[in-house]
């Protein structure tokens, strides 16, 4: 199967700190991938490089057969708006906009008419169990409801890849399960790929595959039996 997004030998430093030291990762359409690792392992930096938020110092990121790591700011912004969707831990909804306006935002930014965008957003409220909450401001939603609104906003533009960074980090287990179920079901229906960065095994268990990041590199879980060196 061909990868929709592939990172090869990514390197990225912040000052003297090497966050990525030759990280490889690829994800296929329809695949849900979890990226786990201890704090400071480089997992968020890897996500940001693959999502064209950060530019790697070396290595390549290929999306749909095209290198995107060296694109200019404007092209990267376009890519993020059009082809990628994002769900973060919190603080991502615009507080002054209602829930339905938040969901419609990506379509409005893409130039769709307000009426069309709001109508499309409307469909997501029933689908994600949010019926009746369209007019609420983010401050009037529970944490779980706000995350479901964020999932709808990430998916409304039919992105090819969704990036989720600790998407349930601020939620209790039950609300976190609900958000993950909705996210995974919705992206599968759209045949999108998802990369979920998490430190929670329970969240990773919703993925098809989990990779572990340590010291800025990706460990695919292969084990060399009988190797003699300790550690």
């Amino acid at each position, binding site marked *: 199967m061909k990868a929709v997004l592939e990172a090869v030998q990514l390197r990225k430093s912040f000052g003297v700190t090497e966050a990525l030291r030759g990280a490889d990762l690829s994800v296929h359409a329809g695949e849900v991938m979890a990226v786990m690792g*201890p704090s400071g392992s480089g997992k968020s930096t890897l996500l940001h490089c693959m999502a064209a938020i950060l530019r790697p110092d070396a290595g390549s990121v290929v999306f749909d057969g095209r290198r995107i790591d060296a694109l200019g700011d404007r092209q990267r912004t376009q890519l993020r708006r059009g082809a990628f969707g994002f769900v973060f831990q919190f603080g991502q909804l615009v507080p002054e906009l209602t829930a339905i306006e938040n969901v419609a935002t990506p379509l409005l930014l893409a130039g769709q008419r307000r009426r069309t965008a709001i109508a499309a957003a409307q469909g997501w409220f029933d689908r994600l169990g949010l019926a009746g909450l369209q007019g609420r401001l983010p401050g009037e939603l529970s944490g779980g409801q706000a995350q479901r609104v964020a999932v709808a906003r990430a998916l409304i533009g039919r992105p090819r890849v969704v990036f989720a960074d600790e998407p349930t980090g601020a939620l209790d287990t039950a609300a976190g399960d609900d958000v993950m179920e909705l996210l995974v079901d919705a992206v599968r229906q759209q045949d999108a790929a998802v990369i979920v960065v998490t430190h929670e095994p*329970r969240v990773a*268990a*919703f993925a098809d595959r*989990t990779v572990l990041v340590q010291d800025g590199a990706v460990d695919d879980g292969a*084990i*060399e039996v009988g190797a003699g060196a300790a*550690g």
Partner: protein
Amino acid sequence: MTVSYALLTLLEESERHGYDLKRAYDQRFETGRALSFGAVYRALGQLVRGGQVSVVGIEPGAGPERKRYAITESGVTDLQRWLAEPENPHPHLQELLFMKVMLALVSGRPAKAYLRAQQQHHLARMRELTGARREATATAALRLDYELFHIEADLRWLQHAQARLADLAAEAR
């Protein structure tokens, strides 16, 4: 079971008498209760019968004869296989996982790689349970949750152990 593999690890370092094995075991693994001589000789007897250990010398002493034991090639292979093979998650893995880490460190084998393989094995089981849970009734889901939370606790320990390997290795060797 872990006692047998601990004895194999110690015998891999050097040939030993039963008494030395008991003393080394108590010192190195700090299990909180001393290993009985009965348990040592029972395990040694089984290992000799299984061909993983052989008697390489018998020395007369003041009391009974003292046998010297050595690990065989098949003992090394068994030890290696046991260390490398991840365990299926269940609620009472604590002692088994702890001893695997310690024995890997003591014998200079790749403890981190073993921990990572175990981590992936646990994660795979969590994926299975999570899949089953999504199709389950609320009652069945609650039962599955119990197992999921236990595996999650193991995973936290597996992650933590990796972060502590350098300190542990310094103590274990």
